[in-house]
């Protein structure tokens, strides 16, 4: 059922939308040396599965009324954050939009604290005052979690500005989606980042739909790796379903930014299996399209197939990993269900310092 492609092809477009181009030449050229070691494969497998199980749990908790408001799941896109995180070092920063649970887990934030924030409890990362879209961890270099589409692009450019100002050699990964890519402040930020040679990597997670609008219906230029062209920012398209391709491209981009050459754009060709939010019936795409991505390009199944094929793990080993992860997520869900709500006195704290 699962295609264990060594070099998986670019995701096929839906009939309606313009076909995304195959990964840029540069990533194809490096495809030969993409292979992960056993440890890397196992680490990637575990981290991606953690995100998927967390999100499945979150979806379930939402269904039970324990999580309120909006809840945007990352299922399907796991390879992007896991591969990119592998290219970072301590001190680097990460910032993203509202589909942020995967990014938080990838930076090493505690699933308990994230889940408790989703349920609005005092043990949440923002003491229950931020919710799904607004969480932070200075310790892990995670700067949110931002609910206004595109705002994080200027903010991430500002984080990179601070790195540049301090000359600390750090890089800021600034994630946004194909939808945010059309916002004006994105280009204002591109301009300043290139002008001042800021150490920022812009990661455009092209999951093909801005809420319910297909890329081709909202974007005049659907090759997002070219969106920096008029600012002289280099960019490339990456198979965002293959964690090895993501890591390889991430390392190139991060090295570029860290060495003082300025910003770099990575367009991740990825796919979200679930709706935009929990209340999205996903009428704008066919079930076949979703199913095809799941069976042929699933980022986790790709790693799983390689692990089995190479004899680096048995079915039994992988089952054990899954069981361990499920236990962690159940514990997180349990904590998030029993932790008390914030004390009423918290209403007036943290407005000003």
């Amino acid at each position, binding site marked *: 059922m699962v295609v264990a492609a060594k070099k998986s092809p670019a995701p096929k477009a839906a009939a309606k939308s313009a076909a995304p181009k195959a990964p840029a030449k540069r990533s194809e050229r490096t495809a030969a040396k993409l292979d992960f070691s056993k440890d890397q494969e196992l680490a990637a497998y575990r981290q991606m599965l953690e995100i998927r199980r967390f999100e*499945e*749990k979150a*979806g*379930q*908790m*939402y*269904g*039970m*009324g*324990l999580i309120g*408001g*909006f809840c945007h799941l990352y*299922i399907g896109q796991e390879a992007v954050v896991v591969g990119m995180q592998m290219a970072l070092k301590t001190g680097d920063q990460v910032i993203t939009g509202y589909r942020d649970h995967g990014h938080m887990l990838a930076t090493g934030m505690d699933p308990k604290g994230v889940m408790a924030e989703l*349920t609005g409890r005092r043990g949440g*990362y*923002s*003491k*229950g*005052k*931020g919710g799904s879209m*607004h969480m*932070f961890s*200075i310790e892990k270099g995670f*700067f*949110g*979690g931002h609910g*206004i589409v595109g*705002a994080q692009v*200027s*903010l991430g*450019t*500002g*984080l*990179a*500005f601070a*790195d540049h*100002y301090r000359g600390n050699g750090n890089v800021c990964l600034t994630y946004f989606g194909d939808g945010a890519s059309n916002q*004006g*402040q994105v280009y*204002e*930020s591109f*301009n*300043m980042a290139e002008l001042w040679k800021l150490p920022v990597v812009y990661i455009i997670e092209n999951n093909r739909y801005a809420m319910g609008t297909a890329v081709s219906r909202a974007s005049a230029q659907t090759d997002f790796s070219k969106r920096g062209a008029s600012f002289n920012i280099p960019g490339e398209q990456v198979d965002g379903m293959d964690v090895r391709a993501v890591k390889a491209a991430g390392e190139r981009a991060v090295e570029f930014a860290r060495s003082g050459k300025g910003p770099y754009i990575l367009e991740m060709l990825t796919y979200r*299996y*679930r*709706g935009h939010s*929990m*209340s999205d*019936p996903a*009428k704008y795409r066919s079930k076949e399209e979703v199913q095809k991505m*799941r069976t042929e390009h699933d980022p986790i199944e790709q790693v799983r197939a390689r692990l089995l094929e190479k004899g680096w793990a048995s079915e039994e080993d992988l089952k054990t990993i899954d069981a361990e992860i499920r236990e962690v997520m159940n514990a997180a869900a349990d904590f998030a*269900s029993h932790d008390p*709500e914030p004390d*009423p*006195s918290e*209403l007036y704290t*943290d*407005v*000003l*310092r």
Partner: protein
Amino acid sequence: MPTEILMPALSPTMEKGNLSKWIKKEGDTVKSGDVIAEIETDKATMEVEAVDEGTLGKILVPEGTQDVAVNTPIALILAEGEDAGAAAAAPTPKAAESAPPVAAAPAEPAPVVTAAPAPAAPAVVSAPAPEPEVPEGTEMVNQTMREALRDAMAEEMRRDGDVFVMGEEVAEYQGAYKITQGLLQEFGAKRVIDTPITEHGFAGVGVGAAMAGLKPIVEFMTFNFAMQAIDQIINSAAKTLYMSGGQIQCSIVFRGPNGAAARVAAQHSQDYTAWYSHIPGLKVVAPYTAADAKGLLKAAIRDPNPVIFLENEILYGHASPVPKLDDFIVPLGKARIARPGKDVTLVAWSIGMQYALKGAEELAKLGIDAEVIDLRTIRPMDTETILASVRKTGRLVTVEEGWGQSGVGAEIAARVMEQAFDYLDAPVLRVYGKDVPMPYAANLEKLALPNVQEVVEAARAVTYR
């Protein structure tokens, strides 16, 4: 133990739905991500995906059932080794009518709904005794507000390497209004940064730098252009400390001229004091004297919060005495009694003080002794100083160039009515800009702005003289 699959809520407001179709049958193997059923909500038909793995042991709610309450068990998943016998003991499904409401149904503890009333907001400013900000015998130097603002920034930049200034024309051009004159020469291009004309973007870059711990001074050529950046100011700068549970602070100053200049018409002549003063998480400052401009700007730069620092173009060239001190600070949140009096209280700030002070002189000729309060900081507002004055005079007039509706004067009037009603001997009157976009023609512009005569008339009306 079999795992119950519960009727899911698929939107923030869903309480019940129809189980339109079972995709999986009893006995089918189910794994995470498999679609097991379709649910119809009031908005759409949605697929339900399995989270747990195993065998679909028993369907508890048949397809076609209407109005199934959220959190009702709809099926049982059996883990490896479990048989359907375990399912027999399962609870029978409840009809929507008898099903408990969302919050009470799940096996997991439901969120506690806090019904208790919100606690009272903490008092922001207690009655501060007026502290002498300047020691006796300090030498005073006459300075324009322009020079005072520049000195404040230069002193803070010398003191703290994390402070930098960015904005349009702040460096090479030496400031569109010459407020940053000489800063590039002293501090270099790394700390005095010319930006492209992209307010939204560079405001966001400034906020991001502040989140990383730097202390930016973001100059807007005028606050009219900051409307392009207001999302970053409010949604990012003002709210992040709260939304992060106190983790991410944003120490940043947004400054520049605000309000009407002269003959630049509607888009370039707007007062944003009331706009920003509406927002929790911001501090809002609007100085009138050169000394206050210097001391307040230094305090604003050191403040750990985002501060909106509203200057006035017409006041830039006005000179007034500034104390010659190494580190002159005026605390935020404290009003100043600019002129003591006993008959009527006039409250103003920024250029509004011109009308108030001239009005007080005119009133003195009529034998009316006006007390003039320079509010200086609009948020947090020094209500105590206003109340203390009103308790003495029993009468209040507010003066501002901004519009009346939802204006700062309206807020002051409400607070005084709430907290000092018994002391009022007359209704509070407000003097404010006319309810029109600013016209270009000289005569119309003059009519649109408040004037001294209006202040005098309002004060006479509330003193019945």
